[in-house]
């Protein structure tokens, strides 16, 4: 064997390594990722409806469905077909196509928390509906126990083009917000899964990154609510984060706001939780803009103009922004923040929903976007 043979063998080994690396890298690259909140056009949405929530969700759905483009498909998960007919009658004539998904069991009207949508690399391929191991309160709340099944009910629909998977982790869909590269996760997910499914924070982070196909930022400290209530990505590594102090400065009697939640909570401790989120998001490399927000003293009833749906359509950003029976200066200030962020604002009245601890994004899940 001379130098030519040795050089040839080395070249062959290098080529082999390159081939294996390419194939291995390609097969290990995330083949699905958590759908971003701020990218692409809304294509398929999912809402839940039960007649007992007739005063709660249909007013919100009606505003939204009338504002959405006609090419959107909305899957309506209902206990039975009469419930679907009831909703159709309540929302009236709308542009999007409404497709019923009758499930035949108890459920609630809140779709967001039931599952996460993992988008495939090929946007025409089936979406993965990833449901948590359990619902918070499903042991003593029959409708919530039924909610545990609605993800697989939807995937079973012959036209839904979706796979169903159950994660071993415990979470609500609302515990996550995501942009193209990062998923932000509330501390509650760690509290519910640690000691039960994962050993510690590091193992949860690893599990989430593998599952969601994106970088994960687990918030250290945050308001005790779902992430979409207090933060929302707006593209280009920018994030809006709620700020109670901005709202308090806009009205004469701030403590009297959100009477349904026992008055507004402008305490230093609550403000500090919002500020902690802003600081951690900035540390993650994001430009943060603060937006007025009014948390109620009950910790659950909030006026939050962040809990909307975003899309990019025809090169323009649109936000379907919830509104409430709140003083006009608050809404105007929130709208101004969205406009400054480059969004066309479509106001959706969520007054009927916020007293039940949620808002527009909480009621509407996104199954598919067109990027």
């Amino acid at each position, binding site marked *: 064997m001379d130098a*030519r043979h040795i050089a040839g*063998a080395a070249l062959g080994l290098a080529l082999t390594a390159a081939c294996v690396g390419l194939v291995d890298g390609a097969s*290990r690259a995330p*083949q699905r990722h958590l759908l971003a909140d701020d990218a692409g056009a809304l294509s398929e949405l999912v809402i839940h409806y039960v007649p007992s929530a007739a005063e709660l969700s249909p007013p919100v759905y009606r505003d939204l469905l009338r504002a959405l483009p006609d090419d959107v498909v909305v899957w309506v998960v209902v206990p039975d077909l009469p419930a679907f007919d009831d909703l159709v009658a309540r929302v009236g004539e709308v542009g999007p196509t409404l497709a019923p998904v009758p499930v035949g069991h108890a459920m609630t009207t809140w779709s967001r928390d039931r599952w996460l949508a993992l988008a495939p690399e090929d946007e025409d391929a089936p979406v993965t509906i990833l449901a948590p191991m359990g619902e918070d309160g499903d042991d003593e709340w029959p409708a919530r126990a039924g909610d545990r099944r609605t993800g697989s009910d939807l995937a079973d629909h012959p036209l839904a083009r979706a796979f169903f998977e159950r994660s071993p982790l415990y979470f609500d869909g609302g515990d996550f917000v995501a942009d193209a590269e990062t998923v932000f996760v509330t501390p509650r997910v760690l509290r519910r899964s*640690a*000691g039960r499914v994962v050993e510690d924070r590091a193992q949860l982070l690893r599990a989430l990154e593998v599952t969601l196909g994106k970088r994960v930022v687990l918030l250290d400290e945050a308001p*005790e609510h779902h992430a979409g209530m207090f933060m929302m990505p707006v593209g280009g590594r920018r994030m809006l984060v709620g700020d109670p102090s901005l709202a308090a400065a806009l009205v004469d009697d701030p403590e009297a706001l959100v009477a349904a939640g026992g008055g507004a909570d402008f305490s230093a401790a609550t403000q500090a939780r919002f500020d902690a989120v802003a600081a951690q998001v900035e540390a993650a490399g994001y430009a943060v803009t603060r937006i007025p927000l009014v948390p109620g003293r009950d*910790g659950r009833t909030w006026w939050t103009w962040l809990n909307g749906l975003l899309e990019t359509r025809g090169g323009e950003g649109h936000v379907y922004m919830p509104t409430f029976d709140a003083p006009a200066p608050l809404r105007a200030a929130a709208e101004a923040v969205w406009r400054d962020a480059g969004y066309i604002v479509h106001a959706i009245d969520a007054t009927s929903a916020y007293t*039940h601890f949620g808002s527009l994004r909480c009621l509407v899940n996104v199954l598919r976007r067109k990027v």
Partner: protein
Amino acid sequence: MTRHDLAVIAKSAALSMLLTLPVLLPAAVSAGPEKIVQLGLAEHAPTLKVGGAELTVALGKPHYAAGEAIVMVATATNPTDAPVHIAATVQLVRVPYSSPMSRMRAMPTSTHEAPVVLDLKPGETRVVRLKTHVKMGNGDSAQILASAKGQEHQVILAAAGIGERPKDPMGLGNVELIPVAPIAPDAQDMPVAEPEVPTAPAEPTSADAEVPTAPAVAAVEK
């Protein structure tokens, strides 16, 4: 370098690829994307790991009626061959009943906090009862949270419904609501955990013993 030299190099390269590629490529192809199951995640009874020992805490009995003072039972097990010192904080949290129309449960309120400090011998298990004066209402949910001293996160160790679920699905009309004050800011300095059985000679006990025959040496931090 002549054309013949290049041919020899190419031939050697091809030969080495022919020998190595069939062995290495299939493994890479079959690796595929990592699945979450490969991370070894599996559901098990909630435990708090403290220095090699395991702490579980449950309610003192399967069902509490509305207005009944709640007792927690902490079980600490040291499966290791070395002594372990456990220092943890246990919290009893009340999640008030809320309308089934709600998106999520009402805001949890911490009602009782108890430090649990134990020195466990190798292989030892100890059971400690933690009495509280906390009473909850129909439809409330009791949660037990724990965190190890110096550990940043809490773990939910148990949850259970209290009393009877209200029959009125739309409201609170027939619910007995018991206001529960949050713990005082300095409560963590108070001796709130009461070992039911006082110190005795240390003997290992079984984890399911309701009343420990051994030493609840569960020293309560003061």
